[in-house]
């Protein structure tokens, strides 16, 4: 039994936002995926106010022990999400965390207010870190910017707020502390590290979005260091992720002070990775 910001969870294993689509998984696997759901809470892919097509393909590049993605946050937009996806996600047997990203504080405020009104939503994650989309400055790289965002949206909902930190920062621990002081209920990390690849023959950027984010085992040691540096300075719960592929890796993040762990890229190799990792941790399945 784990508790995350007052929400009881059957265990500590979440998915990383954008690395498991529960609705698509039901198409591929049918209701079997609900009968033994792989995570103890489900995090939605990040939604934005307006619908987005995402970046042009190619969107993927395999790296040594990792992956670069340049997905570009395709999503149906807030209204599309609330109208079409939320009813389906409400059927999941675990608490729902909705990830939101605003390109301005106004956008963020609308996203938090509207998702926070919905009973189906247990927690809200603020993605202030996605390196794929050209926002100019990355909000989450700067403590003051992050604090401003949290202060703005904190009064708009009674749902617990998770701030997802970017690893592409001078000092993620300082950002985490700023988020905590501004009223965040938890932080999650790491998001992907900025990376790129050139096409084998043309030497031009391979990815349609030019750059992308690196994830997978290649970043695990970096993630573990950032998680530990954050747990050392904040009192709120920390959700640790980055390259977790086994129960042993997950145990390392918990030893480093994380309350929960999230599985990202490993889901792509095994849709039941969350179940396997929970079992290896000695935790029960979600259902």
């Amino acid at each position, binding site marked *: 039994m784990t508790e995350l910001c007052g929400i009881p969870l059957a265990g500590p294993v979440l998915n990383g936002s954008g690395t*498991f689509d529960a609705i698509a998984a039901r198409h591929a696997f049918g209701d079997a995926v609900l009968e033994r759901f792989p995570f103890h809470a489900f995090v939605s892919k990040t939604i934005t106010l307006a619908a987005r097509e995402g970046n042009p393909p190619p969107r993927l590049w395999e790296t040594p022990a990792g992956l670069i993605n340049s997905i570009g946050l395709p999503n149906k937009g807030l209204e599309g999400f609330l109208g079409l996806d939320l009813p389906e996600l409400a059927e999941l047997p675990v608490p729902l965390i909705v990830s939101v990203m605003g390109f301005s504080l106004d956008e963020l405020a609308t996203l938090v207010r509207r998702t926070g009104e919905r009973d189906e939503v247990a927690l809200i994650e603020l993605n202030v870190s996605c390196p794929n989309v050209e926002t100019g400055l990355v909000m989450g790289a700067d403590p003051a910017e992050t604090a401003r965002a949290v202060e703005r949206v904190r009064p708009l909902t009674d749902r617990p707020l998770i701030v997802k930190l970017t690893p592409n920062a001078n000092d993620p621990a300082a950002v985490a502390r700023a988020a905590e002081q501004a009223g965040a209920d938890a932080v999650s990390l790491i998001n992907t590290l900025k990376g790129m690849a050139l096409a084998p023959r043309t030497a031009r950027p391979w990815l349609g979005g030019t750059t992308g984010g690196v994830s997978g085992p290649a970043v695990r040691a970096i993630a573990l260091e950032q998680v530990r540096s954050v747990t050392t300075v904040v009192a709120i719960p920390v959700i640790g992720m980055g390259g977790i592929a086994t129960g042993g890796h997950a145990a390392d993040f918990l030893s480093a002070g994380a309350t929960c762990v999230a599985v990202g890229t490993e889901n792509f190799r095994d849709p039941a990775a969350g179940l396997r990792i929970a079992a290896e941790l000695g935790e029960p399945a979600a259902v």
Partner: protein
Amino acid sequence: MKVADEPRTLAPPRRRTAHVTAVERLGAYHLVRALDSGGPQDPQPGQFYMLSTDERWGGGADERPYLPRAFSHARAREGELSFLFEVVGPGTARLAELRAGEGLALVGPLGLGWRPPREGTRPVLVGGGIGTAPLLCWQDELGPEATLLLGFRSAAHAEAASLFVGRPEVATDDGSAGRQALVTDLLREQLDADPVATVFACGPPVMLEAVRLLCAEFAVPAQLALESGMACGFGACFGCVVPTKEGYIRLCVDGPVLDGERLESALLGGAGH
């Protein structure tokens, strides 16, 4: 959730291990057979599996492969799956090294396969190179009356034609087997002779685009099995999108077989190879 008339057999929601029974060379290609006792016995022709190996997946050139790779099953008979593939990189190189008795890790069947031919039309199957793989089980299901047109680079590649029932028409780029022609030349002849057909095609992007244009010209329905780089195969990563008239769609859940009419072009960059 399963839409009754979707050509989609559901996959168990986990990676499982199939047991390799044989690995054969077939000219320029390889054929791996594996006993998949943990999966459904009725994958639909045109669906695919995400494959990796139990041992030594990774550590090849440049420490890859890391992610699984997508492969259409060529055949599925009595629980034995077979996959026909060409070695083009670290993943296929590792698969080619498999030996009987080793474990083939897989998730699948995934995606939407071939749909039946339009009422009253004859099926014409058009394969280019390794794109012949998903036509094998489709011919098995449609029966030997289906017309089969296969194009290959050379005789070594054309050996794959021997896997089909009956005598497919074969064209090669260099004339070393069958006729020296493009497979789309054969298709034009067929449609010229009898345009009441449904075309099923799989092959490289240029071939698929030629097929798409030809079918549009003859107002013949075309089902095209496309390829794109995939990380997960079950809709999780949004990495495999292809542009269609309706915008980007995830090829792994909404394809890999698409109606030609949905596409502006089948010339996709950054696909498999």
